[in-house]
Structures are given as C-alpha cells and as structure tokens.
C-alpha cells in the first residue's frame, strides 16, 4: 500500500506546471496588477539597497533642522522632530516595516493552511480538536492578543514577529478549513479515493490547487493589518524601539508634529497605505488569474 502511494511522488508534474504557467501568463496581461506589482518591487528594492540609495544617515540628527517642510534643499521630504532626513528614514523604514508586515503573514499562512487543510480534510474529531483550539485564540481582539503575547515573551522584534504570527494563524486556519471542507465533498475527491489514492496524494494533487487560491487572497489582505498591528506594538515599546526607523513607529513619534508640519507627519502613514493598496490590488489580480473558469 505505502509503496503504491510513494510511487506517485512525481504527480502530474506536467499538469501542475501547465496550470501555474497559465496563471502567470494571465497575470502578465493584467495591467493593473502589473503596475502595482512594479511599485511594490520598487519599494522592496529601495528597502533592501537602502544604504546605497538613501541620501544621508538615518540616525544623523540636527537640532537646527527640526521639522523642515517638504522641498527643503538637502532634505527633499523634509526632516522629522529630531532633524533627521525623512526620505532616508522612509527608505530605511521599509526594511523593518515590510519585514514586520510580511513575515508573520507568511508564517501564519504556512501554519494556518496546514492546520486548516488537515482539519477540513480529515474532519471528525481531528477537525473539532483543531478548530476549537483555534477558536480560543479567536475569542480575543487581535490587538489585545498581540500585546499580551508580546508582553509575555518580552520586548523585541523577534518576539513581536512571533506574537503577530500567532495572532494571524486562527483566521487563516479558519478560512483554510472552510474552503477545504467544501472542496472535499466534491465528487472528484471521491473519484480520487475510488482510484485508490491515499490522503497525502489526494491533498497534494486535488486539494491544494483548489484551496490555496482563496487562502492566499485572504492572507494578502492581512499584510496591511499586520503592518499596522506591528506599528502599534512598536508604539507600546514592544516591537521596534526608537531611534530605529520603522513606518509605524515614525508615524507615532511624528504625531506630536501633526499641527506644525502635517505633510511630513503623514508621510509614514502614506507609505503604509501605499504598500497595503499595492498588496490588495496585486492579490486581486492573482485571484483573477487563478480562476481558470474565466
């Protein structure tokens, strides 16, 4: 029996490639998705190569040049409350902000999908055990949960990442479970069982391709929430600490300057907004490209 199941490790590889290739080709024809994808790439590249691109040192403060407006010579986007160059800090800030926004969602996507697909496919008591445990975490507001876990683990970026991951596992697991339950009851899964395939093979060939799309779309919508939660943690002193540049933290420290220099104070928020919009529209495009029935 196991020998038979093992023999299929090479699956319909050709078929799977064909599907993802067609998704990719449809995605490249979607102008909106492509545009926002390029903007994202730009922001990512800027963050990664920050030392090469940024005009000055993100930590170099100057008491004389505090809160300069946008367009000041030498400081294209003005300066913050300690006279540090905003453009530089926005570029550097992308490093931590994108990490804090993406890493927890990616981790939660992996763990949550695994839990949800297992619960949905196996059903019965396994489902009850997994989903009721997940529900316990669901009972707390996400901000409170993130703060509580971070607080318990202690301040620091890694602990903040861990706590955010834990916060996002339950909703992803729940979406994964409900989609899997729907797909599992379809006849093609029965037919696969009737051809003698074991559970791992069925999940890999027949379930994953049909459930990953919706889970993925949902997960991308969490990226912006995650960035905002991360900045909230920083504000409470549980995530990033000043003077490290991070958009959420910058937004919080600049909030005192909102009446003196509103445009500069709003810049970090605009970055968070831009990245969220990009992710949402890109995931929209991916969802449409994944829908083969169109």
């Amino acid at each position, binding site marked *: *029996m196991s*020998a*038979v*199941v093992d*023999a*299929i490790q*090479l*699956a*319909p*590889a*050709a*078929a799977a490639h*064909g*599907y993802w290739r067609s998704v990719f080709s449809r995605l490249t024809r979607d102008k909106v998705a492509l545009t926002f994808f390029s903007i994202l790439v730009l922001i990512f590249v800027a963050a990664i190569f920050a030392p090469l691109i940024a005009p000055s040192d993100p930590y170099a403060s100057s008491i004389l040049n505090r809160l300069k407006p946008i367009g000041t010579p030498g400081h294209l986007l003005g300066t913050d409350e300690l006279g540090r160059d905003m453009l530089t800090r926005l570029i550097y800030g992308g490093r931590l902000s994108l990490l804090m926004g993406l890493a927890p969602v990616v981790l939660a996507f992996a763990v949550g999908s695994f839990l949800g697909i297992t619960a949905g496919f196996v059903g019965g008591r396994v489902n009850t055990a997994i989903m009721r445990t997940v529900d316990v975490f669901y009972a707390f507001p996400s901000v409170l949960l993130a703060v509580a876990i971070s607080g318990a683990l202690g301040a620091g970026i890694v602990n903040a990442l861990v706590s955010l991951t834990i916060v996002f596992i339950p909703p992803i697991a729940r979406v994964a479970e409900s989609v899997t339950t729907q797909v599992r009851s*379809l*006849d*093609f899964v*029965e*037919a*696969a*069982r*009737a*051809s*003698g*395939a074991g559970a791992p*093979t069925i999940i890999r*060939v*027949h379930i994953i*391709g*049909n459930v990953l799309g919706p889970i993925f779309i949902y997960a991308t919508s969490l990226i912006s929430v995650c960035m905002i939660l991360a900045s909230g943690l920083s504000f409470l002193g549980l995530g990033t600490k000043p003077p490290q540049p991070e958009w959420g933290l910058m937004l919080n420290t600049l909030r005192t300057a909102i009446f003196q220099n509103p445009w500069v104070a709003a810049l970090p928020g605009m970055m968070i907004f831009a990245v969220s919009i990009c992710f949402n529209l890109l995931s929209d495009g991916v969802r449409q490209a994944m829908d*083969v*029935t169109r």
Partner: protein
Amino acid sequence: MILQVKQLKKYFSTGKSFFGKSRGTVHAVDDISFEVAAGETLGIVGESGCGKTTAARLLMRLIEPDEGEVLLEGRRIGGAQGGMSLTEARRRMQMVFQDSYASLNPRLPIEASIAFGPMVHGVAEREALKRSRDLLARVGLEPSRFAARYSHELSGGQRQRVNIARALALQPRVVILDEAVSALDKSVEAQVLNLLLDLKTEFGLTYLFISHDLNVVRYMSDRVMVMYLGKIAEIGPVESIYRETGHPYTRALLSAMPTLDPDRRTTEPPLAGDPPNPIDPPPGCRFRARCAYAESVCERIDPADAVGHSGHLIACHMSIPRSGHTRQGLAQ
C-alpha cells in the same frame, strides 16, 4: 460470479444530540445480497433515497459497511487472510459519478485527471499520460484537441466521456455507473449509452448500471434489481422483470413509465404519497404503507426473497408459497 454481495448493511444515525445520543437511524442499505456474473450488466432501479447510491459507495468502500461483505473475483475486499487489499479492489472496480462537472478537478487538464489513477498505482507519468490519450481517443475525444483542456471547457456529454475514460484508465473488471447518463440530454445520453455498450464488449467489462430511468435500464441491462427503502424488492432477468413483474412496487414503477403504445396504457393506480421515512422503519414489509394489497401478514413478517423461476426473486408475500397472504399467487 465476479461480484458477490452478502448481507450488506449500512445505517446512518441522523444527527447526534450534544451528548452524543443518536436521534434515529436511517436504514440506508438494509441487508442486501446479490451476485453479478462476469460480463453482465446489472441494472439497479428505485426512487431517490432508496439506497442505490449508498449501495454503490459501499461496494467501492467509499463508506464503510456496518455489516456484510463484498467478494470481488471470489476474494473478500479488505479481508485479512486471502482477502483483496482496498487499493487492489479499487483498481479492479471503478465508478462513474452522476455529476460530470463535480467529478473532475477544475484545476487539472483532463489528461492529468485520467492519468492520476494509473500513477497512483505506480505507472510512470509518461506511460500514464499515453494511456490517458489513448483512452480519450477511444471515448471519442480527439487527444490533440482535448487532452490539455480543463473540465469547464467541455460540454456535459464530453465531460462524462472523460469520466468514463478516467474509470477505464485503471483497466478495471467492474464499472459502477451511478446515474452516469441521467444528467445528459436525450440525444447525448443515447450516444454515451452506445459508447458504454461498445466499451463493454471491447474491454470485457461488467457493469452495475444505476438509474431511475426504466427505459434506459431495460436497454442496458441483462438483469435488473429493484430497490425500495434500502432493501431489494425484486431481482431477476430483465425481460422477466418487465413482463412477469412480481412485486407490486415494480408494477407501480413500470406503470408510471410513459409509453407511446396505446395498447399498453397504464391501468395500475399510481403510487400514492412519498416513500415512508427511512428513519427507524417499522417491522414487516417496507412497502406495505403504500401497497394496495397489504394485509396483516405484511405487517408482521418481512418477506424474504422468494425464489421464482429462472432466478427471479420477489420479496412479496403474494409470491411466497404458504405465506398466509390471501392473494397468494395472484400477483400476476
């Protein structure tokens, strides 16, 4: 006998209360036994909810039976000693489902759907895809045009051809066709039926043909089994069932069948009411609530299959000698 079914039973409990107490039991398949000879087609008919599909799923072991056993080629499926493993049984017995759309993975090109089965059983990918294309050609779908298509790009008839090819990809001996043509247009249905007949002779298949369409069953079958509420009402050779109908239920079914022949207009009163609730059925004959000839013996004793001539079994007291029914032997 390629397939022997012995005292197969499946009860479903209908929803449990919070503390795990069962509220009632549906006797979906209640103690059915029958045999199918190699190369024949056994038609299975009955109203919806009579247990046809549950019986098919039990045979495929898609659900576990509560009691009874199934022997394929003389070997017990899932048996410990000398039994046939489930994987092996599922290679030799395949099934085509009613819903042609839901039974194909929308994310896979159809050639991959067909090749999946053989690959599960260790056939190399290249070989499996070749077999898949050969079968596509055999069921009338030009591989160069269709192999790479997805199921939504096909019509209902084409999809059901793909499902048939998928079932045949494992080179089975027995194919269960669960309402396989019911959802198709009449003209397409006829084409698919003829394809099934051709494939049967070509590959030496044995069919279990489940349908609610009595005309189609008559056209396809060598023998017919009539089911009512999880039990066999009547089983026998097709002409015997249609001409010398023994069971009042079968007669009611046949009389409900539309005919173009004015000499054969229905005279039998139609069946009144819905089938009784299959939850915790009362003792005695299952059909008695709707039977015009029900008597006290029908309430007390569940009619066992009575042997008629030439293997025609009728589960009715009117056909059982000395059963105590006053219309004994007047059934015809």
